[in-house]
């Protein structure tokens, strides 16, 4: 499976060679410190080839942005993980939105866009802010705790499943299910294999929860089903669209909030700026999404021979986009390795870009803003009380444990 960029053409007309790199972007050692490898890929060429998994890779901002914004050439319907749905049976029925192309995607995307619109966020805002204040009050009273389970997980769990309209029973399956989904985008390594082997109870829970009868009226889930009454989607499609919120709506925000708290704990100067002006909370969260890029990678599959970055990628090839590397590309960002809560961060690809850009991004931002606003108002100092521990996932970057002490403001 040699990319044609390496084959010799006529003298003077041969395209530049595509560098072959030995990097395994799904290895534990990579997850421990991806930044040197990100830099190596960015500096090697606009397009690289990763021999470990026989995929093309793009790590510069310009090429990642280009791939994200040409969804007909770089399609999603053949899977946004390594597995090519044209060659392998997907581990679960494909998503009707994430793993779909226009025109099918256009219809389902429109429904979720309406369910998660700015107008809907306005109605949720006060409740989400109050829940964050209550959570931070509780943690300030405790003093020392683990910011991952006790804040980054506990806060989204206190607001999102209710907003979705889930039954109280069985919610312990939510984070393991999401972890499974994001591990499954990776290659057949131990993380993916183990996740799928243990998936049956989580899949059973999610399948049941997506049914109309199990969803509380007024929640996101019931709103999705209501679109099957008006004909925008079919009754059979509605549960699979609810599944998208269960897959992508919780764990991602856990990692996002965890990233923000980790940034504020590590960079006291930025924490001081946030305390001085809590109105920066929303941008401080957004910058944490750029800086840590909780969703590190997604794949696309080429639908035709396509020129990208001066080389040709043949039809039917997997292209791995390094969102985290693009978000720290010095070609696009000044001081890319600095966490700066006043940065103009618009244009980062932490939520993707183009037609597949995270449809739940407004929920994520609302949660992030709520938590950081409450922290800025109520916490004087955030001190790390022990070494943080990393959590390993083929797609998501974040922590397993972040022991901290909150001093009251």
């Amino acid at each position, binding site marked *: 499976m040699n990319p044609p960029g390496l084959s010799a053409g006529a003298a003077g007309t041969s395209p530049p060679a595509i560098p072959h790199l030995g990097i395994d972007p799904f290895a534990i050692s990579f997850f421990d410190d991806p930044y040197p490898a990100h830099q190596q890929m960015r500096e090697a060429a606009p397009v690289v080839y990763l021999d470990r998994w026989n995929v093309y890779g793009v790590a510069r901002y310009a090429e990642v942005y280009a791939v994200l914004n040409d969804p007909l050439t770089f399609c999603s319907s053949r899977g946004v993980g390594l597995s090519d749905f044209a060659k392998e049976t997907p581990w679960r029925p494909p998503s009707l939105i994430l793993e779909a192309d226009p025109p099918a995607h256009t219809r389902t995307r*429109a429904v979720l*866009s*309406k369910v998660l*619109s*700015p*107008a*809907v*966020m*306005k109605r949720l805002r006060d409740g989400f802010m109050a829940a964050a204040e209550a959570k931070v009050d509780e943690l300030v009273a405790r003093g020392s705790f683990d910011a991952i389970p006790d804040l980054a997980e506990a806060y989204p769990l206190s607001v999102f499943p209710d907003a979705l309209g889930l039954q109280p029973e069985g919610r312990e399956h939510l984070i393991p299910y999401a972890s499974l989904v994001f591990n499954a985008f990776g290659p057949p390594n131990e993380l993916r294999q183990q996740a799928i082997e243990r998936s049956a109870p989580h899949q059973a829970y999610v399948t049941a929860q997506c049914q109309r009868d199990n969803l509380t009226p007024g929640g996101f889930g019931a709103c999705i089903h209501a679109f099957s009454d008006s004909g925008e989607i079919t009754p059979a499609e509605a549960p699979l669209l609810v599944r998208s919120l269960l897959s992508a709506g919780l764990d991602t925000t856990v990692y996002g909030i965890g990233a923000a708290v980790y940034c504020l704990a590590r960079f006291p100067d930025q924490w001081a700026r946030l305390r001085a002006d809590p109105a920066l909370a*929303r941008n401080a969260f*957004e910058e944490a999404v750029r800086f840590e890029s909780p969703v590190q990678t997604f794949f696309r599959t080429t639908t035709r021979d396509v020129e990208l970055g001066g080389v040709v990628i043949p039809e039917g090839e997997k292209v791995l986009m390094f969102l985290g590397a693009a978000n720290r590309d010095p070609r696009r960002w000044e001081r890319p390795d600095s966490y700066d809560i006043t940065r*103009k961060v*618009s*244009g*980062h690809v932490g*939520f993707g*870009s*183009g*037609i597949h*850009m995270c*449809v739940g*991004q*407004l929920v994520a*931002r609302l949660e992030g*803003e709520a938590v950081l606003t409450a922290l800025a108002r109520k916490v004087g100092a955030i001190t790390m009380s022990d070494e943080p521990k990393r959590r390993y996932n083929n797609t998501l970057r974040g922590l397993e444990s972040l022991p901290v002490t909150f001093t009251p403001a």
Partner: protein
Amino acid sequence: MTTITFIHPDNRSETVEAEDGATVMLAALTHGVDGIVAECGGNAVCATCHVYVDDAWTSKLEPVSDDEDALLDGTAAERRPNSRLSCQIKVQPALAGLVVRIPDRQS
């Protein structure tokens, strides 16, 4: 290049030479005009590039699409008849002299 003027809530104005084919949102970001946040980067998701178009210009713009209309219902500042999302306004020579006002908040 097309001249566009942004007026801030404190009535301070900034005039930029915007690249034709770009959006008014991108022109603001490119030229460092504050107050256009554009959280979603121009993907018509977020409604944080809200502007009030000067009355002389509202009828010269492409009409509001259904998607933009729905997003405008979620703007942080009050929606008015001349509210638009600046990511949906394409810069073109016919808009030379366009004036838009930036609301006091975007989120």
